[in-house]
């Protein structure tokens, strides 16, 4: 497989996620779209790791290993982010009884 197909797939997923984030007002769906975008980037990172498999880094291991561990850490961070994010959404729902992100316009004042 040429790498370009993976690139295009990632871009497509990313843009779909972005369109979702822009068009939906349900904050949970917006949040899910962000997860989708995050995953598309992960996919791209794995594809690139495959491309640079032959390159060896300073520790004597393959670059691919580093890239995959990088993805692993991204997942860790994403998991932590989701925890806090969902807690915020729950909090917001409890205060406003809505999950419309347009209620989050306190910044205006």
């Amino acid at each position, binding site marked *: 497989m040429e790498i370009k197909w993976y690139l295009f797939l990632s871009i497509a997923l990313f843009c779909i996620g972005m369109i979702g*984030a*822009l068009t939906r*007002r349900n904050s949970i769906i917006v949040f899910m779209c962000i997860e989708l975008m995050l995953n598309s980037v992960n996919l791209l990172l794995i594809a690139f790791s495959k491309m640079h498999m032959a390159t060896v880094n300073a520790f004597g291991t393959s670059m691919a290993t580093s890239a995959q561990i990088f993805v692993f850490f991204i997942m860790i961070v994403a998991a932590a982010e989701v925890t806090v994010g969902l807690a915020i959404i729950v909090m917001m729902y409890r205060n406003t009884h809505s999950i419309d*992100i*347009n209620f*989050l*316009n306190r*910044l*205006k*004042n």
Partner: protein
Amino acid sequence: MDAIQFIYLVPLLPLVGFLINGLGRKTLSKSLIGLIGSGVIFLSFCISVLIFIAVSKEGFTTQDIQYFDFINVGKLNIPFEFQVDQLTSLFLLIITGVGFLIHVYSTSYMKEETQSGYGRYFSYLNLFVFSMLLLVLGGNYLIMFMGWEGVGLCSYLLIGFWFKEQENNNAAKKAFVMNRIGDVGFLLGIFWLISSFGTISYHDLYNSSNGIITSISAINSPAIVAITLLLFVGACGKSAQIPLYTWLPDAMAGPTPVSALIHAATMVTAGIYMIARSNILYSLAPTTLDVIAVIGTLTAIVAATIAIKQNDIKKVLAYSTVSQLGYMFLGLGVGAYSAAVFHVMTHAFFKALLFLGAGSVIHAMGGEQDITKMGGLGKKMRVTYITFFIACIAISGIPPFSGFFSKDEILSAAYASNPLLYYIGLGGALLTAFYMFRLLALTFAGKFRGTEDQLHHVHESNATITIPLVILAVLAAVGGLVGIPEVFVKNGNKLNDFLSPVFAHSAQIIASQEVPHQTEIILMIVSVILIITTSVWAWKKYKEYQPGTGEESVFGKAIKNKFYVDEVYDRIIVKPLNALSRLLDNVIDKKGIDGIVNGVGRGVNYGSRQLRLLQSGQVGSYILLMVIGMLLLFIIQLFTK
């Protein structure tokens, strides 16, 4: 050489005094303020004496002391530097010495000021001395200009010291504006120097072995004439020459010791110093020298004529200063630089003495300055009377008092250059003798013409006032002995020898015309006889003066009104300028510039009100805008290569 290492202390000490007195004017006691104010000047004076001793040693060469880079742009490098040579050290002595006496005098004279006013006064006075020291110590024209501006500022502050009266403010403003006109000339001169020679450091310009100016041999080249004329405009402003002299008589609005400081030790001598400092440049431009000589002579005679009819004791002295400065410029103009500097020195002594004496009189009279209302004070104020008398003799030029030697040196140089200048100068000297003895007679002789209250109030001033008077009287009496003409004593002109290294190169350029000794002696005798006759006549005429109702002649009236110079200036310069500025104010400023400024304000206001709609606070629209921005960045980055 040791003393010269500490030269930075000379200006630094007055600056420190200024800071202490300025900041602590509300907390320090009056006596402490006076002590600090005078003490720092005294210390400066001591260092100046040490420097003078070091400079007058055999084999001294001009020292250039660089402290740090001040302006360093491209090829132009102007360091903060001091230069010490004979001229500098002499001026240091005059400034700090006379300055110190004036400070001591002020501690008593200003006693009645409020506490903070007292501190303010002394801090200004210290700043004044600091600026003047900076001016004479500076090793290039920029440092000189800084001092020059500082002196202008301080004169403004001190002339307007009693700022509650609008008249004083006007006088201060007038002095400032007149000085500013001169400063523009000076500044342009400096710029021109930079553009033609690339440096304004005295060391680079006037160095005796390889200075840029020193190695020029062409005389009267246009650039140099222009530069010297511009610098002379600056000197005119500061040293009150025609046409910029009108500020000096008005500067009397300030406290009397300030007048003494301005007229004797600082400020007005700055112009003389500057030209003496640039003597090599001026010697290369004989045209400018002619202009200076003519203006100096004119100023001397015009101011002396005006002084005859003035009735304000300080105004008389002010016009006399203008007139004496005219003599100094005459001396510079005919190439007798050291004679001019000599006259600066003697003038500093007797003019400081005259002003301080006048201050003592005014103090005794409870603020009265009109001499027609005085008279007979000689019996009540012996010390003031005698010292004032000595000063009168000195300024009139009666031997062997100091004024005679310096004035004679200038006049004989003028005779060598052009006898016409001599005759006018002599006429001015006669007028000087006349108005001085008129002043003396009206003030101290005859009967008292004031009110009864004033008569009881009249008393001799206390020691802090009289001691400076006595010291200055001694200096005014014997100060001239450092420059005895060659015709009397061989090598008698010590001052001339002392200053000769500074003016050596100029002496080479200007072939000095020697007056035959016989002629010189004849001139001297004639002038002395004339002066004494005039003095005695004036004394006789005004000794028994009673305020009469005699009709003034047209000419007398003109003189009394100072030849209407102020009025003429007012008509041809101030009024049209006012009209123009009113026009500019009403039409261009209010309508045009204010319109633009307010329009900008209104435009921004409107724009921001519209832009505020963008800040909806809704996350969705923010993200959308972010995406659009990102998109634009991508497009710019990827497709514009």
